[in-house]
């Protein structure tokens, strides 16, 4: 076994991964919070008012990063599901299933903020615009993965079935996007361009990118938090988990 695979096996072993995740997780949450606050200050205070949309455009600083995250989380989940199914690596199973609820949360935020933004701009809470529709389908995909994972008793079988579904979804996403675009051009009436041709100023761009970075870091923090729990569940009978369970009990009664 070469050094790299050896390292991988060691880090991939549940107790090591659990400890490592516990050490990195607070830094991710902290960094995400700090970067996010800076980005918010830049977006809400420093960035100038948009000449077309007024201050309503400021929703972009959360809407767009969340939309990016909704896709990123899905790719992260599908990539891990692929690794888990092909090489049967436990850690990847747990990582894939940890990403699902976070991705669903970001997708939900994207949909809600998009529709809140739509009200003043389009005069309606919901429009069957191609992007919003694709995002809605994406939310259903996430909910399907989460639902399937929750419905199966055996944890490993659940992760494998849900991972398989996530992989079908990754094929489906571009097809949905393509079909929804076609459908939308068929019904030209309702298409409204959200981000018009107005030039985006540099003072608007940096808070956006910084917020995107913050959400990524936050995402990894949350993935690690959920991965730790997944590892505890998966390795329930092992000594290291037993020690943690008993420690936790002592803390609760102390």
């Amino acid at each position, binding site marked *: 076994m070469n050094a790299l695979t050896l390292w991988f096996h060691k880090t991939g072993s549940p107790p090591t991964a659990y400890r490592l995740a516990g050490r990195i997780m607070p830094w991710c949450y902290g960094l995400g919070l700090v970067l996010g606050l800076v980005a918010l200050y830049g977006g809400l205070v420093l960035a100038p008012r948009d000449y077309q949309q007024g201050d309503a455009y400021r929703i972009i600083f959360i809407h767009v990063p969340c939309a990016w995250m909704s896709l990123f989380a899905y790719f992260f989940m599908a990539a891990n599901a692929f690794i888990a199914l092909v090489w049967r690596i436990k850690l990847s199973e747990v990582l894939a299933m940890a990403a699902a609820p976070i991705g669903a949360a970001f997708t939900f935020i994207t949909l809600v903020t998009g529709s809140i933004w739509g009200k003043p701009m389009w005069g309606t809470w919901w429009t069957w615009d191609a992007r919003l529709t694709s995002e809605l*389908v*994406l939310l*259903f*995909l996430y*909910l*399907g993965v989460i*639902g*399937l994972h929750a*419905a*199966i008793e055996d944890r490993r*079988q659940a992760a*494998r*079935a849900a991972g*398989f*579904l996530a992989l*079908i*979804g990754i094929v*489906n996403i571009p*097809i*949905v996007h*393509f*079909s*929804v675009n*076609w*459908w939308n051009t*068929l019904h030209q009436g309702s298409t409204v361009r959200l981000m018009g041709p107005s030039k985006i100023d540099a003072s608007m761009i940096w808070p956006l990118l910084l917020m995107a970075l913050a959400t990524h870091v936050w995402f990894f923090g949350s993935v690690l938090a959920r991965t730790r729990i997944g590892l505890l569940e998966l390795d329930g009978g092992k000594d290291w988990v037993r020690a943690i369970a008993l420690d936790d009990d002592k803390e609760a009664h102390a």
Partner: protein
Amino acid sequence: MRSGSTAAACAALVRRDLTLVWRRRGDAANPILFALIVVALFPLALGPEPEQLRRIAAGVVFVAILLAGLLALDTLFRSDYEDGSLEQLVLSPHPLSLLLACKIAVHWFTTALPLIIVSPLLGELLHLAEPLRGLLPLALLLATPLLSLLGAVCVALTVGMYRSGMLLALLVLPLYVPVLIFGAGACNAAQAGLPFAAPLLWLGAALVLALVLAPLACAAALRISLS
């Protein structure tokens, strides 16, 4: 000792499934009845104006048939799982994906084909526009096998579950969206006097792909859920 040929196994499976449908022929009309009810509810909800109904006719028939198919999907593996013959299928020496393809084909033939045959009647109830009378069954002919194939993969994932109805709908819906858009979209485009060949060709291409890939995916999914 010899084991039979794969063709003989497929033939035996097709014969058995057809016999079973025949023995339970009372249930065979259920999807048609369901689609009829759904279609009949629309005029009751929207009012009987022919113009208004004509505008939505193709879409409503499509959705009604899609829902009826979704309802029928559950029967694809349910009884086979419960009486243990699904296990025997997995353990047979023949390629599982091929056997599943046979099962899906029989299922399509006995649940979706009757729906296509009654689709002109359903269209007539909603005053379907004249030029769509031929196009709607054609679009359905391309779309329903896709629905059966994609649905089978999702059913295979939920096969061991107690109550899978709602979850199955949730799993299947994102996969059905493109099929619905292109199938009903072709009809709508034709109605609006726009070119409609492209979406039908897309459906055809997707069908060819699904014919090859879906049985493989279905077999993989089934192995996961039976383990």
